[in-house]
């Protein structure tokens, strides 16, 4: 409980020092981005934040409870139809399904038992309906324009792709978004319209084995275009997407048979709207 008056403390900010403030939402956007990259790579930091959040939840309960007007509930429920739910976290990576089967399959079969109609709709041939899947995923997206510029990326050093990712992140118009991946881990997308390129940084992704791989997709109204595959090392990866990035594209990530597919054969573990 000492209180050293270490004023300003110049120099690099240690994200671990920001975890309590982060749980209180007392950070700036740049600090938030810093913490979230730390969270993506550190289970310890995530556990720490969870514990702070439980405590912060108690602060919420110190605010006097107030009953909202009854109309709030009815207008909320009126909006549910157009608010698809995100797909649940899969306990394990989804098994690959041949593309032809998926295209013909009844939508209900693609969804786990008990999935709501909205969710089934969202999952149906997702890559041909990018708007639907993104509407669902967007709720969880944190957009941090430009916040990544000038910050140091963590992850394996000396990886060639890491420098390429950094170059994109350093573009004046760079934007980033981070999503929790279904099945575990986090994926951060960084993109620059000026450079016409985008890249992902992944952390804590589960190992999908030798016979499967992660694949990236650029998706527009006409469908999904393969943008490269990657196999994380100890869950982490830096990958620049193949092909040209254009704003408005959706970037999807799926698990595919080794070597990659020409079209997605599984539901995305993450989908970003740009």
């Amino acid at each position, binding site marked *: 409980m000492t209180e050293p008056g270490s004023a300003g403390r110049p120099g690099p900010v240690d994200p671990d020092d920001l975890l*309590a403030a982060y749980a209180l939402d007392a950070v700036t956007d740049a600090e938030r981005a810093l913490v979230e990259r730390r969270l993506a790579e550190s289970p310890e930091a995530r556990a720490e934040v969870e514990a702070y959040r439980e405590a912060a939840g108690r602060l919420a309960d110190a605010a006097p409870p*107030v*009953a909202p007007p009854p109309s709030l509930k009815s207008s909320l429920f009126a909006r549910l139809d157009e608010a698809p739910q995100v797909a649940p976290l899969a306990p394990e990576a989804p098994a690959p399904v041949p593309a032809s089967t998926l295209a013909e399959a009844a939508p209900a079969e693609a969804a786990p038992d008990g999935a709501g109609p909205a969710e089934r709709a969202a999952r149906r041939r997702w890559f041909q309906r990018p708007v639907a899947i993104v509407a669902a995923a967007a709720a969880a997206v944190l957009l941090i324009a430009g916040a990544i510029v000038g910050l140091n990326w963590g992850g394996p050093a000396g990886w060639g792709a890491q420098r390429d990712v950094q170059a994109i992140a350093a573009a004046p118009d760079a934007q980033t978004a981070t999503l929790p991946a279904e099945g575990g881990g986090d994926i951060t997308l960084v993109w620059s319209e000026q450079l016409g390129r985008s890249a992902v940084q992944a952390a804590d992704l589960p190992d999908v084995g030798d016979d499967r791989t992660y694949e990236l997709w650029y998706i527009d109204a006409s469908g999904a275009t393969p943008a490269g595959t990657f196999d994380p090392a100890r869950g982490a990866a830096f990958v620049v997407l193949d092909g040209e990035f254009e704003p408005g594209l959706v970037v999807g990530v799926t698990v595919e048979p080794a070597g990659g597919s020409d079209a997605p054969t599984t539901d995305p573990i993450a989908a970003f709207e740009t």
Partner: protein
Amino acid sequence: MTVALAVPAPLRAASATRRRAARSAMLERVDDATPPPATSDPTLEDLLVAAATGDRAAFGELYDRTATRVFGLVRRLVVDPAQAEEVTQDVYLEVWQTAPRFDPTRGSAISWMFTLAHRRAVDRVRSAQSARDRDLRIGMRDIDVPVDTVAESAEVRIEHERAHEALAGLSEQQRECVALAYYGGLTQAEIAERLGVPLGTVKTRLRDGMIRLRRLLGVTA
């Protein structure tokens, strides 16, 4: 600079004995994880997990059992009632949409919902008001508003009292910083400026305050 917030005087003066009692009561509660089951009602976690499968009835019950708490928190930050309602509706929509991502092994349902609600409320406050406006508002308000402004379930009332007990366990300075951050939507730098103390001091107080709060609540990382 004095700040008229945080915990009411009677609680501030709570004796060490009382705090110890409150602490052990809270520890007990956290240990058995689920709230005392007065009936076989589903827990909030049960309801959220059911809502994740598209179960609107479960979502409706979840709303009924949490709305006064969530709306209370949002109102605490976003003072304008119409805006607070808008934010609250968006919060519940996000709860509905992202419920499948809720992992009951990583935390409680209410804390997950409060996290979404607080974030949205802070975003609204920061975009809508200058730091100075927020300062004035915080200065004028006190979190000790009578609980019975609305007929409360025992669950809500008990949680409200527990929260006050926990806050009373912080030092005055920690409470001040934590309250400015959480109820004021201020960043660490804004708090430092407002209190006229170095940023490092604010960081220390926030961190120590939160660690203490965690300990009081028996939450371990």
